[in-house]
């Protein structure tokens, strides 16, 4: 069963008491693609992943993974049978040896590939007889990856997969992930390492405070996102809003605009309003991330201060 959208959520919401971790999230992940899932700590990434895996129940909204409903316990088992997951904290059983944990995990999956297991065991230099609790953090990550990659899952979900890995292992992992779609495996991974995401991801999904703030292919981002600097000989004028203007920062005689599309028209607007120096440059994913998150953070702080003032 091939689905064009391997993950799909509609108005997915998760509340923990009065705190809303995921807020009406509409998510759509394409099949056989690598999707980078970005967001600050506490943005709702892990809660979203846990809902996709059936570990926590959505407060409202719904979603499917591989066509199976995430809020149905029986269908959730089918999801977990067909996907592989590496959690942020790994959480492997410390009382088992590496070999025992591999044997244990293998017993749950009919698509286990012994030759991949052997290859990764050698590649990662994992000591089979050592207890998991005696492994370093990096080794634990490698073992968790081995357990996930020794199959041919339809979907690989990884939460901060490179954490604790040395540069060589990170490189090997990224190469493995890049090759995954060719084997029919879609990859959905969260990371704080934006340079890694930018290197391997096809699509970017950015969330903040539980809501999607960016859902686009990396190609589209590279094509459309631009930073437009407009320099004026006198005080910068107010610019009327145009489609594509995401952020505007005014600083004396200069206006800096972050545009998600329509860069030429925005530059032309600047020219029409008397800009003497116009500079249009591409924007990195890191810049988009920081701009988006910082702007929301600033607005939030402002709202907080206003609220505090009102209380006083």
């Amino acid at each position, binding site marked *: 069963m091939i689905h064009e959208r391997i993950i799909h959520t509609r108005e997915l919401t998760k509340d*923990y008491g009065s705190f809303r971790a995921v807020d009406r999230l509409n998510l759509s992940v394409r099949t056989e693609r690598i999707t980078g899932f970005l967001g600050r700590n506490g943005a709702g990434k892990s809660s979203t992943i*846990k809902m996709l895996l059936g570990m926590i129940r959505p407060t409202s909204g719904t979603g499917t993974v591989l066509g199976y409903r995430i809020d149905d316990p029986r269908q959730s088992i089918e999801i977990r049978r067909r996907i592989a*997951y590496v*959690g942020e*904290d*790994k*959480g*492997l059983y410390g009382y088992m040896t590496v070999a*025992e944990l591999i044997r244990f995990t293998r017993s*749950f999956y009919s698509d286990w590939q012994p030759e991949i297991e052997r290859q990764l065991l050698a590649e990662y230099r994992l000591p089979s007889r050592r207890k998991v609790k005696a492994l370093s953090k990096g080794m634990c990550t490698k073992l968790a990856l081995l357990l996930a990659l020794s199959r041919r899952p339809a979907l690989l979900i990884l939460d901060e997969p490179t954490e604790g890995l040395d540069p060589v292992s990170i490189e090997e992992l990224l190469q493995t992930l890049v090759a995954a779609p060719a084997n029919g495996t879609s990859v959905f991974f969260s990371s704080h390492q934006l340079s890694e995401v930018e290197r391997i991801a096809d699509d970017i999904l950015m969330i903040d405070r539980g809501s999607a703030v960016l859902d686009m292919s990396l190609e589209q981002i590279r094509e459309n996102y631009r930073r437009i600097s407009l320099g004026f000989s006198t005080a910068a004028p107010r610019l009327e809003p145009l489609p594509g203007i995401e952020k505007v920062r005014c600083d004396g005689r200069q206006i800096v605009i972050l545009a998600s599309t329509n860069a030429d028209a925005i530059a032309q607007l600047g020219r029409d309003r008397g800009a003497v120096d116009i500079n249009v440059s591409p924007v990195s994913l890191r810049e988009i991330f920081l701009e988006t998150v910082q702007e929301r953070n600033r607005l939030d702080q402002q709202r907080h201060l206003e609220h505090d003032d009102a209380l006083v």
Partner: protein
Amino acid sequence: MLWYKSLREIRTVTLVGIAAMAAMCALVVLNQQTMRAHADAPMTYVAYIWKSVYNSIGRDIFIILSIILGSGGLLQERAHGTAGFTLALPVSRRSIVFTRAVIGYLGVLAIAAVPIVVVPLASGYVGEQYPIAQNTGFFFLWAACGAVFYGVTFLLAHRLEGDYISVLLAIPLLMLYGVLLNLPWLSRLRMLNIFHVINGEDMPFFNEARHLLIAPLPWLSLAIMVAVSAVFITFAARRIQSLDL
């Protein structure tokens, strides 16, 4: 293979429990001459074994081990950070809870079975005899009563997070139960007193003078105890089913 994981989780406690129970039984038998000589009143070897193994230290060790084996499960896994890995396996939460419950109870049964092996062997070594049928009878009493102690702790362990909370709470709860049994209207229902059923004290199937099980065991009552434990475990599974982990 869930059974394997559960087995590994309880392996140390079970093996230590079996060793402790075996050592206790052996010491009781090997010291029988000295202990009986210093007793307030003369007693038979059978009475000595009942008082030492089935009515005091042996029973107490068994109850404590049943309670310890009942702790653990998914909430404890969450505290240890392994719940995510377990829940990502393609199995239902119900299977995880019931497998853990069954394997844990098998540990209880293994500890309850230790006197069946050790007491006759050690008795032969010191030239005494203790009927194996008596050991077997007490095994069934321990198995049923142990199921209740185990089930109570299992339920607590699936409601309260923390390593020792369930154990620490189960002990005073059972003590409170023991106190409540002294209420006049409850004391009349003798079969409710699992602290007496477990060793036969004041029970129609036990001869107080000879310290022997004499009549058929109260199978219905024992079955009800196991059923009560199963209800506790079902409640534990239902609780985990709806919990965000």
